[in-house]
């Protein structure tokens, strides 16, 4: 097929919000490409100004109902660092454990409900349930196990109420946590089986040489804290983020685009980056499942991120079991952490990648300045580059097929909840 055509995806819905895609082709050549995010702006950074530092976890949680723990954790980290406090022992375990819950829930949602239907040719998991009832049932149950952890530790699964700067309002007893074990044991086996299943899906032959960026921790697979590293030699503290990254605002999008500095290049955050940078820190069964499923220690095919997510579900289950096993109830549900006249930086690994917060706090403990960089902003350039590279070999596809494949390429990033590309209102214009 040759000649110019425009592919316009009018409502790419949510990518940490609502988005759209516009593509102009001339034969194999991409003339123009915009991945637009037009989610109405909600101005969190602005109205955080003047609020008390202790309110940041609850307020920022409302940025995203899909990964509130990520927001709460990054905000708590920033405030605790600013106050010179550090969670240790049982409190640290609980912070990591509730995050495992979010990973399990969010990844199960993505793997079974948002991504797998693409590979199998269904419009939704509900449609898929007809011929694959067991898969959908497994997905639902895995999601529920993740939600169960969040509900026990957080009070509820969406916008948990029990997370605060310095720890928690109330901590569970050992017996409370032990009640989670049977479900987690089931979930671990189910996740390993899922790794095997998703690795058999048909993947396009597509790899790119990304700069992967994620947290890294000397002893553990990164979830809730660590240094920021990349496969191009970056190794910085979270407080150095602004020296190495930059956000720019483009006309077509309500989300800011983040780039590496210097150079202004794209980079990639999320499960594939975490996995490739931290493979050796995976828990034993998760790591073995990855290898058995034919993943190498580095994965550069974004479509295979579904396998990486399955591996991370297995990891999160194994890690949760380990944390519960070693848990002893802390004496106090929180530690004292009251930042004054200081700046705090915090980061954590949201299910879909690095989430960075920075706050300036005044002498009264009020926030005077806030800066939040969600994973999808950071992946935007990478997504656009993927699309540019993906189209040429497939320009011959009929419009509807091409559209679906491009949606799928975007969904690989799990941009918040991939509903993004479920909301396509495609118009193709041939010239």
């Amino acid at each position, binding site marked *: 097929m040759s000649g110019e055509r425009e592919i316009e995806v009018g409502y790419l*819905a*949510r990518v940490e919000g*609502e988005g759209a895609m516009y593509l102009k082709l001339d034969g194999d050549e991409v003339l123009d490409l915009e991945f637009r995010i037009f*989610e*109405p*702006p*909600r*101005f*969190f*950074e*602005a*109205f955080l*100004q003047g*609020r*008390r530092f202790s*309110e940041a976890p*609850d*307020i920022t949680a*409302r*940025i*995203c*109902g*899909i990964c*509130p723990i990520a927001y709460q954790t990054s905000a708590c980290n920033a405030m605790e660092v600013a106050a010179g406090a550090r969670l240790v022992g049982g409190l640290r375990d609980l912070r990591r454990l509730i995050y495992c819950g979010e990973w399990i829930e969010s990844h199960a949602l993505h793997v079974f*409900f948002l991504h797998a239907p693409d590979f199998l040719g269904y*419009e*939704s998991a*509900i*449609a898929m*349930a007809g011929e694959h009832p067991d898969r959908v049932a497994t997905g*639902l*149950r895995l*999601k*529920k196990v993740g*939600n169960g952890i969040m509900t026990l530790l957080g*009070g509820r*699964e*969406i*916008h948990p*109420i*029990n997370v*605060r700067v310095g720890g*928690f*309002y*109330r901590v569970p007893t050992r017996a409370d946590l032990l009640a989670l074990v049977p479900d987690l044991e089931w979930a671990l086996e189910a996740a390993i089986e899922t790794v095997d299943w998703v690795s058999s899906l048909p993947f396009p032959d597509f790899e790119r040489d990304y700069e992967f960026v994620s947290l890294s921790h000397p002893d553990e697979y990164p979830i809730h804290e660590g240094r920021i590293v990349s496969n191009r030699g970056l190794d910085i503290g979270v407080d150095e983020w602004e020296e190495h990254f930059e956000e*720019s*605002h*483009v*006309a077509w999008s*309500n989300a*800011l685009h983040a780039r590496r500095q210097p150079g202004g290049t794209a980079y990639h955050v999320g499960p594939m980056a975490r996995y490739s940078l931290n493979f050796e820190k995976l828990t034993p069964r998760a790591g073995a499942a990855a290898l058995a499923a034919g993943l190498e220690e580095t994965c550069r095919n974004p479509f295979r991120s579904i396998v990486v997510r399955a591996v991370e579900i297995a990891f999160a289950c194994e890690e949760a079991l380990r944390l519960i096993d070693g848990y002893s109830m802390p004496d106090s*549900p929180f530690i004292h952490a009251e930042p004054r006249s200081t700046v705090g930086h915090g980061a954590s690994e949201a299910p879909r990648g690095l989430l960075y917060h920075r706050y300036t706090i005044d002498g009264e403990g009020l926030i005077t300045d806030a800066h939040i960089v969600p994973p999808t902003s950071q992946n935007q350039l990478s997504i656009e580059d993927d699309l540019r590279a993906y189209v040429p070999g497939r320009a011959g596809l009929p419009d509807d097929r091409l559209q*679906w494949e491009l*949606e799928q390429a975007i969904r690989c990033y799990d941009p*918040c*909840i991939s*509903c993004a*590309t*479920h*909301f396509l209102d495609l118009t193709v214009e041939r010239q």
Partner: protein
Amino acid sequence: MSAHRPKLAVWKFASCDGCQLTLLDVEDHLLDIAATVEIAYFPEATRGQVEGPYDLSLVEGSITTAHDAERIQMVRESSKTLVTIGACATAGGIQALRNWSNVDGFIEVVYAHPEYISTLSTSTPIAEHVPVDFELRGCPISKHQLLEVLEAFLHGRNPNVPGHSVCVECKLRGTACIMVSKGIPCMGPITQAGCGAICPAYDRGCYGCFGPSQSPNVDSLAHWWRGLGVSDLDLVHALRTFNGYAPEFRQASEAYER
């Protein structure tokens, strides 16, 4: 149940997606729901779309742009029953904090090129734009209440979604009042029930995510809070979160700000 399955649509305006995720979080009933209603439009879950009109529309999010103010009219026209879900849709949400500020100033804080952003100066609940058949509160909504509303809709009965205070739920679950027994400031007495009184059970004062209860006496509670050592600034903050623009909270916070 009749052979005709009612058509369900789920719409999103300015929001965090948490309330529509709640529909996917009813894991034990999701497939039953899908069997009982036709999920005709729900981009978060399916790329398929069925034309309206829809028997039941769930609307998440608040109105913050001129485009959305038009879009909600279209949603209303294509919906027989329209139920708003969550604090954004029922009270303007956290983003309604802009309603007390200068939005241009807000844009400059977040965006380098304010001229690229088009937005209204307010975030308003859906009911300020179109008639709404039922408002389901919460930030986020409770999945039990969502299921209850769906069930009630299917059978044509009134949903059991009472407008009384969170205190009732504290008592039903046997939590000893933390404001009385620990002196922790709690918004439960002026907040609508629905969550199951989670916060007090976790040693935390309710922070009002279900919005004002049926006849909230904010002044009396504020007076007691001051006695517990809460400053007027913190009182204003407490009232101005996810439901800050709900009339009863708004009027009180504006009075205390003076």
